[in-house]
């Protein structure tokens, strides 16, 4: 289609989209209107339904209810192939490129126009597209040789080569260095200047302000508001995104914190990609205290807890547990000394196909009464499981049931039960209630408060700001591997926290426990 004047014609309209998964409603009558030629930001916390809504538009999911309109026509989209035919392209967070092939081969891969590889005819077209939009990349380079930013440009080229007019980008800056991110924004500007439309999924407020023309905020599967970027500000967006209405308080007994249990000093950890994930971070957690780490996921949370649990090498700094340096201590020793860990990815700590009973002994199978010299004591295994099932009210047909058959809340309860029954001096907990309903969330929260009352030091990582604020005695905000500021239960300020999460504010003088880089 060639448009005369793209202003005020809608490239995409999603109306009343509902997408349910077993136990969750990912999109709950979500609406989205995107104008032709604009950069439209889709803003929301993790799990707000942004990606799921875009997967509906791209034909990966089929909506249970709702209408999709593209360029003024109502359409049904069965597959990404249909979406591309309609001129819609999507670039996922994880790039889908063949690492050992060249840029050119990746761009034309999968096109059905000709039997033989159309290399000769493709080259000039690719070079022309690259020139037009400022996509600097060598067509003969192999993908594995390219940086994340360059790989992303290949993905954009792929979409443009297929004649895409509406480009969806899922968290496009999450893998990029700041310099590369800036360059991407320039490219997107050039694309919209040429009449293309960009939908930009993000949870970074600054990016919304910097790049988008309009922004739609999503929360809990619903579209909350659509605003002209020029007429809003970071503060308003933060409030819309987090939703201050639902903040509620828990019964929290006063506990006087005891001695420091965990001390982290100038810790540096790198991510799987080899990039710095935790940067000169220092913190302290005392007995009988919950230290919350708030922040958008992917800002070093996972690397931080894994380093403390001993599952990830440390590239600098020290971890002290009960006054002893455990930086180089193997994971098993840390478990034995009393570090419990409930990871954000539950299946990292459970074996789905194994029974509840066998999952409950993962931490104590090697020592009495469960493990004897060579054999496992079957009776002790059974008693242990039954005790936990009873004490923590885990709802399961019996202890032999494969743990994957339990509900999400019960799986999480079982996992917490296993870690808590060890009576750890330090409990690391990440995203304890993600994906759980209100009832299950409440139980889990109360279990964590019980741990605190018992005198455990709890380090709580949560994307969910409500949760972090409700449970924490102190709350530190993590952004790009650094602590931006720290609050006590009395000084917590939603606005400031929101800004810190987005990297837009940094506490000038942090408390000594959250020290500045040395």
């Amino acid at each position, binding site marked *: 289609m060639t448009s005369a004047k793209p202003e005020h014609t809608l490239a995409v309209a999603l109306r009343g989209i509902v997408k349910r998964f077993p136990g969750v409603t990912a999109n709950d009558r979500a609406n989205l209107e995107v104008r032709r030629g604009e950069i439209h930001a889709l803003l929301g916390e993790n799990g707000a339904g942004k990606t799921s809504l875009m997967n509906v538009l791209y034909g990966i999911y089929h909506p249970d209810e709702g209408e999709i309109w593209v360029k003024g026509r109502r359409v049904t989209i*069965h597959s990404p192939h249909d979406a591309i035919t309609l001129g819609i392209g999507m670039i996922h967070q994880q790039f889908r490129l063949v690492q050992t092939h060249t840029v050119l081969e990746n761009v034309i891969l999968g096109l059905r126009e000709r039997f033989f590889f159309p290399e000769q005819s493709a080259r000039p077209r690719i070079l022309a597209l690259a020139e037009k939009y400022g996509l600097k990349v060598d067509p003969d380079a192999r993908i594995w040789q390219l940086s994340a930013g360059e790989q992303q440009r290949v993905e954009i080229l792929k979409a443009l080569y297929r004649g895409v007019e509406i480009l969806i980008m899922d968290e496009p800056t999450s893998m990029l260095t700041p310099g590369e991110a800036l360059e991407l924004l320039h490219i997107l500007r050039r694309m919209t200047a040429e009449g293309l439309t960009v939908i930009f999924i993000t949870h970074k407020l600054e990016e919304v302000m910097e790049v988008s023309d309009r922004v739609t905020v999503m929360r809990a599967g619903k579209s909350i508001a659509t605003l002209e970027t020029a007429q809003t500000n970071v503060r308003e967006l933060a409030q819309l995104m987090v939703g201050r209405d639902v903040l509620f308080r828990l019964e929290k007994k006063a506990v006087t914190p005891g001695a420091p249990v965990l001390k982290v000093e100038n810790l540096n950890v790198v991510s799987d990609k080899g990039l710095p994930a935790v940067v000169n971070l220092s913190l302290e957690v005392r007995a009988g205290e919950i230290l919350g780490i708030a922040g958008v996921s992917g800002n070093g949370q996972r690397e931080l807890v894994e380093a403390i649990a001993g*599952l990830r090498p440390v590239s600098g700094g020290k971890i002290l547990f009960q006054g002893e340096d455990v930086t180089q201590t*193997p*994971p098993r020793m840390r478990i034995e000394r009393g570090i419990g860990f409930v990871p954000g990815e539950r299946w990292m700590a459970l074996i789905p196909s194994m029974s509840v009973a066998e999952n409950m*002994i*993962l931490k104590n*199978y090697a020592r009495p009464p469960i493990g004897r010299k060579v054999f496992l004591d079957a009776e002790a295994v059974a008693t242990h499981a039954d005790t936990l099932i009873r004490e923590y009210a885990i709802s399961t047909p019996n202890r032999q049931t494969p743990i994957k058959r339990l509900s999400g809340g019960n799986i999480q309860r079982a996992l917490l039960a296993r870690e808590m029954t060890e009576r750890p001096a330090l409990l690391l907990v990440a995203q304890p209630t993600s994906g759980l309903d209100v009832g299950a969330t409440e139980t889990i929260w109360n279990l964590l408060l019980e741990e605190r009352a018992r005198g455990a030091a709890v380090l709580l990582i949560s994307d969910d700001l409500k949760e972090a604020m409700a449970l924490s005695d102190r709350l530190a905000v993590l952004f790009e591997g650094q602590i931006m500021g720290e609050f006590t239960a009395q000084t917590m300020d939603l606005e400031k926290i929101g800004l810190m999460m987005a990297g837009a504010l940094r506490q000038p003088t942090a408390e000594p426990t959250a020290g500045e880089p040395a």
Partner: protein
Amino acid sequence: MNLPSLRIEKRLSSPRWLPAASLTVGLLLALVTVAVIFATLGVDPLTAFQRIFRGGFGSFYGLQETVTKSIPLMLAGVGLTLAFRGRMYNIGAEGQFMIGAIFATGIVRLFPTWPGFLLLPAMFVGGFLGGALWASIPALLKTRFRVDETLTSLMLVYVAYEAVKFLVYGPWRGSDTRGFPITDEFPAAAHIPILPGTRVHYVTLLLAIAAAILVYLLLTRTKLGYEIRVTGENPEAARYAGMDYRKVALLVMLISGGLAGLAGMGEVAGIHFRLRPPEALSPGYGFTAIIVAWLARLNPLAAMLTAFLLGGLLVGGDAIQIALNLPAATVQIFNGVILLFVIASELFNQYRLRLER
């Protein structure tokens, strides 16, 4: 655009009967496929199946041959259930079998005058060690350098084949063999006792049954077995729990290689009484053992049964080769088709197909 299309989706839950059902359907489809192959060879499939069954199980001679052939299958197959449970894809049992045979022969050559009650146990130990040693190469490459064990264990099969050939054509060729590439016959003390009237070297059979039971107990009752299962099912969880992945990987490879080595020892000391070229020692026992293990759904006790079934298939296959004048590869095709369908049917325990408009 509106053509119906098949989609593969992950199952959210799976009923208890599903694994048995998918295995049954897989086997039936395998039989149908083999039937088609027989038909294209101009043989009535029903006749062929009947002949195979009668050949393997329908007479005393057939049965004792089946038991004989199931001994190496059982030993190697039981070992593979352990390796696969620990997520070490050892597909080189055939090579470990060969090295076990070489070691057993080497011990006979070293101590030819020892009495049987010393020599045979020494040969069993030697066979086990030989197989374990061969399997330790892919295991160490995997744990030290992350080299894929599937590839290395397979490639080492051919190295082992050549090693056997080198020995029987070269330094170990016998003096009274009239030029044949075989060693001299072992002294009587190095012969495994045989059930009268059969070829069943029952000591090895008892060892195989004991191995199945021990591996079962190891997997289900011991701390180490728990570590093996956790590592196999979810390596990340094993790491999380502080388990030593290298220890598990090395141990399951050593044990599975050792059991394959025992199988090789059993063949030279219970059937041939000498070392012979690889194709004479084994019709691919080490490879067929992979099917034994998968068909048993990696349960070592069930592997005793599947070893017996596949032993029968080997015997029945020999029978139809002669009776129906079929090529020697027929049985291998049969085996290959079964393995393909059994492994493919595993997919349906976790995924389902859905037809969309």
